[in-house]
């Protein structure tokens, strides 16, 4: 059985090379829904017009597909609510701010 925790763990291997933190700690992942072998991830990016937009989306999808049992993964990029630093983990906040 696929757990949300396993999906989050796998996504947390995706690092934003500009800021140097994983996208889960940055608070970019809004929602993970698992329906049998299908995973739907709702996420955002720290800024619109990010040149890594498609790459980060692609890496996230590949990370989810690595989780045992996942057959299909859909990544949805949303801009509402807009990301802000309060969504990041304390470790990230401490390092950046």
């Amino acid at each position, binding site marked *: 059985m696929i757990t949300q925790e396993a999906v989050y763990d796998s996504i947390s291997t995706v690092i934003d090379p500009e800021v140097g933190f994983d996208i889960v700690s940055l608070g970019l992942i809004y929602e993970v829904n698992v329906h049998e072998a299908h995973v739907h991830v709702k996420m955002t990016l720290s800024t619109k017009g990010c040149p890594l937009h498609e790459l980060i989306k692609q890496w996230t999808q590949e*990370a989810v597909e690595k989780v045992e049992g996942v057959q299909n993964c859909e990544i949805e990029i949303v801009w509402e609510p807009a990301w802000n630093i309060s969504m990041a983990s304390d470790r990230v906040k401490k390092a950046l701010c």
Partner: protein
Amino acid sequence: MKVSLATEMAPPFVLVAHFFIAGLVFLLLSAISFFSLVEDFSGYFISFHFAAFAHLYLLGFVMMIIFGAMYQLLPVVLEAPIFSKDFAYIQFYMYVLGLSMMVCGFTFDTLLMLIPYGGVITYLSMLIFCINVFLTFYRLEKLNLIGKYLLSATIFLAISVTLGLIMGLSIGHGLFEISMNDWVQAHMIGTIGGFVMMVVMGVSMVLIPMFSLAHNFDDRLIHYALPLHIIGIISSMLAFIFELSWTYKGLVLSLVCGSLLLYLIQMILVIKHRVRKQNDYWIKNSVFALCSLVFSLILMTLGIISDKQSFAFAGGFLLLFGFMLCFIVGHIYKILPFLVWYDKFSPLVGKQKVPLLHQMVDTKIADIQTWSMFIAIFWLSVVIAFNILGIPFVIGALLIAFSIGLVLYNAWYTFTFRIKDL
């Protein structure tokens, strides 16, 4: 085979690298050419020495980097690929050839006749760029604010290079009887104020919030600045072409100053909202660039009002070096590692350890470069403003050349970065 949309949209690294490498080479050449300006700052300002330097620096470095950056950024900002990558390559080679011919013509008396031919080739290459950008925009359904800035900038480029061509043909063949002094100034306003500044204003709204992680700021000022800047630039160019009075010229130039002021306040708002508080070489360069723009506007205004030419020269110097050079160099430290990383290391993500972007810059050298550039620019501004040229000017020029040398070293460091360097 799975194909990333990012790969489909973005131009190949090698294309953008062409522009960045050539831009840095022209920067080195303009640093050398800068030494020849010691006499120009003391008197007559539109000399062939000055023209050689201005074309090497503005066309060879500033605009070359802007062309490369636009090819990289347009697909990201507009969410549409560049119309033709082949056009971009053709533009690049024609541009380098035409520009080199023009600079040779300006530098060597015996090669004066190269100027119009080089001018025509450069003109055609810029037209190819404009057409490429226009066709990229033509396919869009809607235009965002940044798109409006970049489109307006490209229209100004098309107009002002046409003025440049007319001047080139008039120098070479006496085609038109024009007031060269006024036309040069209209050409400079269109190119620097219309094209370069509008690109900088537009991309600042993408790059500064992106690199500083700034959010939730009020962006009305940059919206207001757009029509004001366009009207200001058009009317200023017309005022010089039709040789109107300085009262009218001053009035319309103040519109441009007004829009730049709005831009500056907008940038302060963005920077105040930044999340990343590290004062690295990028933010230092960006803040120094913005401060230089403020002092540049003050000095140029003082120069015009008090008819003190040396203040206007110092203002122009601060605009070209304090603002443009520091803004571009600061962003080269961010964009170049990204381009190299994207090409060399992004395919390795998830397979092996890859560097972070800041690791691909020699930070100690970048800091030395940044401070030496700041000192050189401050020193030279004083030297030019108070007309204490000669040896003090040469010392400042040497310091700038040293700093530019460090920029080139860091570019080399980034291009040749290997995983085992980690």
